[in-house]
């Protein structure tokens, strides 16, 4: 029981420490922490519009976090979520534009196409790592840049006629929801949020209840024993990157079919992929953790936009707070050590 408590304590304490540190920075730079954090809270949950925006912002974070967490559990570092997300975005929008189909086919098709694109983008580094022992960090970084330039090229020269953005996807492939918009005062919240929760459940089920999950986690913990046990380490590495990429690709589909409804030229990375790393870490690489961490990140990001308006604090403070939270999670050894000493004092 105490072990479970500690596992939960680390992320929670890290968040608290991060917020405290943020407050200190605000004080030092001449701002009012109370006003700053109140503005942050109001900006995230203050009314139904903001709450809708927070949930909408959370959606791709869930997918990015699931992608990174899934790969981490198998012992792989998927730093390529940015690229996998971009290709998923592109392909899902393309399918959303190219076909005339009833919604019940068109929408799932577009999402699956996004998943497949992301899966393919993840397959390449997975294959290279499994067969040729090439470092997945460097391949995925390269694939990120390749994805950026390739998707921009496709948008400008293949899908549209030289313009900087595609047309909006057909209604039959859209995730936008009148219902959700109406209850959140016309925020951009869309049906993707349901998919995010379902995806988290799928990841949990896959890892904890299937033979595949048994293998993937074993390979992540001990490749030698997995080989001894008869598992195919290569196959599992590749499969892990493919599934991880698929999650990221669906995240991109969320942006294309839900948040924006189209795709446009990107001058740089959206940052969702890198934030996904933070979400996965904060969530302890578990499905439920990722969902909660994504909610936190969504709230921080959306809420931070209100901070300069309501309290004069630059919204970049939130980036600092996020960074410090990650630091504290990384230094969890220190936190657990401190907790242990605290408990000893109580026992005495």
């Amino acid at each position, binding site marked *: 029981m105490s072990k479970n408590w500690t596992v939960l304590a680390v992320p929670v304490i890290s968040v608290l420490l991060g917020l405290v540190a943020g407050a200190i920075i605000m004080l030092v730079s001449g701002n009012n922490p109370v006003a700053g954090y109140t503005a942050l809270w109001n900006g995230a949950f203050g009314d139904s519009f903001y709450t809708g925006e927070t949930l909408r912002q959370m959606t791709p974070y869930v997918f990015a976090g699931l992608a990174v967490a899934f790969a981490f559990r198998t012992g792989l570092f998927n730093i390529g979520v940015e690229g996998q997300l971009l290709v998923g975005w592109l392909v899902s929008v393309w399918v959303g534009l190219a076909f005339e189909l009833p919604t019940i086919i068109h929408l799932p098709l577009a999402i699956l196409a996004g998943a497949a694109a992301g899966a393919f983008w993840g397959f390449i580094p997975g294959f290279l790592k499994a067969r040729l022992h090439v470092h997945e960090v460097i391949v995925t970084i390269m694939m990120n840049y390749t994805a950026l330039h390739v998707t921009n090229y496709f948008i400008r020269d293949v899908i549209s006629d030289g313009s900087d953005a595609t047309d909006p996807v057909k209604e039959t492939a859209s995730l936008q929801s009148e219902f959700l918009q109406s209850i959140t005062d016309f925020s951009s919240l869309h049906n993707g949020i349901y998919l995010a929760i379902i995806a988290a459940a799928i990841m949990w089920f896959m890892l904890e*209840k*299937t*033979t*595949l*999950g*048994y293998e993937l*986690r*074993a390979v992540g*913990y*001990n490749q*030698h*024993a*997995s*080989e*001894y*046990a*008869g*598992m*195919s380490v290569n196959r599992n590495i590749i499969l892990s990157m493919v599934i991880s990429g698929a999650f990221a690709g669906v995240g991109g589909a969320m942006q294309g079919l839900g948040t924006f409804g189209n795709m446009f030229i990107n001058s740089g990375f959206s940052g969702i992929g890198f934030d996904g790393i933070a979400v996965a870490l904060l969530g302890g690489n578990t499905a439920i953790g990722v969902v909660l961490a994504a909610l936190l990140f969504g709230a921080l990001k959306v809420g931070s936009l209100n901070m300069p308006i309501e309290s004069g604090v630059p919204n970049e403070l939130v980036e600092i707070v996020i960074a410090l939270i990650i630091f504290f999670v990384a230094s969890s050894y220190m936190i657990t050590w401190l907790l242990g000493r605290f408990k000893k004092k109580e026992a005495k």
Partner: protein
Amino acid sequence: MEVCDRVTVIRKGKGIGSVNVPDTNPNHLASLMVGRDVTFTTQKNEAVPAQNVLEVRDLSVNDSRGVQAVRGLNLDVRAGEIVGICGVDGNGQTELIESITGLRKATGGTISLNGKNISGFKPRKVTESGVGHIPQDRHKHGLVLDYPIGTNMVLQTYYQKPFSKAGIMNYKEVYKKASTLIKEFDVRTPSETTLARALSGGNQQKAIIGREVDRDPDLLIAAQPTRGLDVGAIEFIHRRLIEQRDNGKAVLLLSFELDEIMNVSDRIAVIYEGQIVAVVNPKETTEQELGLLMAGSTKGAGDRV
């Protein structure tokens, strides 16, 4: 006993008592450590070997650096006997075991099990053909330390019924089996869900042996099965190996402890520079003779089989 003046015995976390070295002997100490009398020489009946289970012919295997470690090795292990391989570490034992169990590909020769050619089989196929492997490095190969000890018990069988069906794991069945094995093989653990990492070396090894023996393999390979274990565990493990042999299974034992080899084996095969240079009867040989053979000197009276 050679270096110390006094000995303090600890059992299950408690100090049992201290004795002066001159006032005690190995048997006395061992029984203090374990809590009951311990026999150092294993009691066993005569072996009744039958047909060949394992036949290794002209096997060649390279090590991780590409250097030939096994050079044209021949070996037979029959049902109902224990063959002990003794040799100085680095003479090809590890590569021999790895090639039989599918962890390393041989460069030449054949391995057959019960007449079926299993050379080049992947580890899973080797296991399914009826081979059990207690690995030399229990932390590297034998267990996933960060898994509960319970799920480790199905490491090679998780994909079969009843532990899983259509890709979905049935952890209830897994833990049921684990619980049975843990009791039967005296694995001391707070529960089946305790992480394997938390168990002592001896209990980890007992768990591995339980897992391998429970599958009732025709050939059981035991590589350094008692390395780093206490006398009680050693005795337990030896008894199990002999039990397998008495049930008509073939056992291949690899060990660097000459005591163990001489005690447990029915036949001893000496490996030197990648070949079996001699096969001797433990009752008719001495440690000195084995030592000489292990160092490469040939027997005066020619080979004996």
